[in-house]
């Protein structure tokens, strides 16, 4: 426990406090997007439901950026600089390292919920109950797990250049077709069913319904659950396979 707490402090300093780009892309950029699309680039009265749904979308978008750009590149860089190998040689092994990175990623998502929620309350005057905020926080964290696991899986590519391409190729199309940037109904008919299978769609829809007092649908919960279990299975099998193929050393 003590090892994990020291590891948490260690990673918090290097990944959050002393890493402005991580803060910018995970928190400030989605917050800027939210202000841009609900305050700057709109005319007339914006329905409250749009402000709420777009807030939910930006919370999911923040988590996706955080996982597929931030965490994936941090894990790859750590592997290249030798932290992963060093951790393997310590008595505690790599568990405290991965747990700490995962916790910080989820905590950053909580921070994104707080920042975006605060902006929504102050600037767009949205009004939610404490129970709704609590649900939004919980769903946002749960909904980030599949993308976080995808980020872990992506970090095992051999080169930073490949990861950069992969992050761009996956994140932005997934954000667009799952309705994070604009409503999914604006997409071509043939694309909408694909978008509705994305993990970001399920959690975005779920959050939007909680925020607007909408009817909860089981498919959002099932969809998120299937993505979590599926990604967990893929990551665990993938890491085992990589370790076996590389004889226990996953190095750069």
């Amino acid at each position, binding site marked *: 426990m003590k*090892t994990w707490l*020291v590891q948490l402090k260690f990673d918090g300093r290097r*990944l959050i406090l002393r890493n402005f780009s991580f803060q910018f892309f995970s928190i400030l950029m989605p917050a800027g997007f939210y202000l841009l699309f609900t305050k700057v680039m709109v005319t007339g009265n914006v329905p409250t439901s749009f402000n709420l749904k777009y807030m939910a979308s930006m919370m999911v978008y923040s988590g996706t950026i955080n996982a597929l750009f931030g965490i994936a590149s941090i894990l790859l860089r750590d592997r290249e*600089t030798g932290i992963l*190998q*060093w951790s393997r*040689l*310590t008595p505690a092994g790599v568990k405290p390292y991965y747990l700490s990175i995962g916790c910080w990623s989820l905590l950053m998502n909580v921070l994104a919920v707080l920042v975006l929620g605060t902006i929504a309350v102050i600037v767009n005057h949205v009004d939610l109950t404490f129970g709704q905020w609590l649900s939004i926080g919980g769903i946002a964290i749960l909904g980030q797990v599949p993308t976080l696991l995808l980020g872990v899986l992506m970090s095992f590519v051999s080169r930073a250049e490949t990861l950069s391409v992969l992050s761009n190729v996956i994140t932005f199309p997934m954000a667009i077709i799952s309705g994070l940037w604009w409503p999914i109904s604006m997409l071509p008919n043939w694309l909408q069913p694909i978008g509705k299978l994305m993990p970001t769609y399920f959690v975005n829809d779920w959050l939007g319904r909680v925020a607007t007092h909408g009817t909860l649908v089981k498919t959002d919960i099932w969809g998120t659950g299937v993505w979590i279990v599926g990604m967990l299975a893929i990551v665990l099998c993938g890491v085992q396979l990589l370790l076996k193929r590389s004889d226990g050393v996953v190095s750069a």
Partner: protein
Amino acid sequence: MKPIIQATQVQFNYGAQVVLSGVDLTIHPGEIIGLIGENGAGKTTLLNLLLGLRTVKQGQLTVFDQRPGSMISKQKIGSMLQGDLPIRGVTVKDMLELAAVQYPNALKPTDLLAELELTPLAKRRLNALSGGQLRRVTFALALIGNPDLLFLDEPTVGMDTNAQQAFWQRINALKAQGKTMIITSHYLPEIQAVADRICLLQKGQIAFQGTFQALQQQYQQVEITCQTALPAATFMDLPGVTAVTKTGLQLQISSEAGDATLGALVPFLAQLKQVAVKRESLADIFVHLTKGAVA
């Protein structure tokens, strides 16, 4: 005394490429082993096997009577591998504190920094340090757990002369404390000076294992210089002599059987002045051995 490391017929290969083959090695507590060999001879792979980073394909390997990489062996081992940790956003003190918390008998980071004269660097970020400074921090990381066994892979690369001297002083102090060490280095005079035993790896096999003196005995190339009025031809037929050159009074004799040649020179000693015998250094012997001059 029970050995710390016991390797029996260890083999390791990457696919079809055999990297280590038939490696037998026994290391006892307190020994310093100089692990030498050409690039690609298998030194780093052997260290990786001992650390549990890779798995032995054939043969048996135990460290502290455990399989390599076990919790017990990890707690007792400190390693300074070739790669340093130029981590962004992390100070030297942060790094040592993270390492210290993982070991049951860890040293206090501030004390270790002071002992290694690293206190002025304590608040510096790792990615802002020079190569030599980073190497010293990696050494501190290897020592923080107060290990019984140290693996030092090319430890002084990038260090300036002062840092190198301080490093070897520290190694001698650790030796006096009874620590066991395996050191690989291409700076062979360093190995010659501290190692109790030399282990020469050649193409994945141990070509020589023993003291430096035993290696010198096996390889008796010597250069004898002196001043004499005797003609060069006098020495040509002495046992082991391979070449004799004479410039004025200065005579130089090359021999491949030093002890025999020196013995045969005894009758001439009264006529020889300023006699000097230069035995081959570890570096010289290494060059000959790896070129296949001596089996």
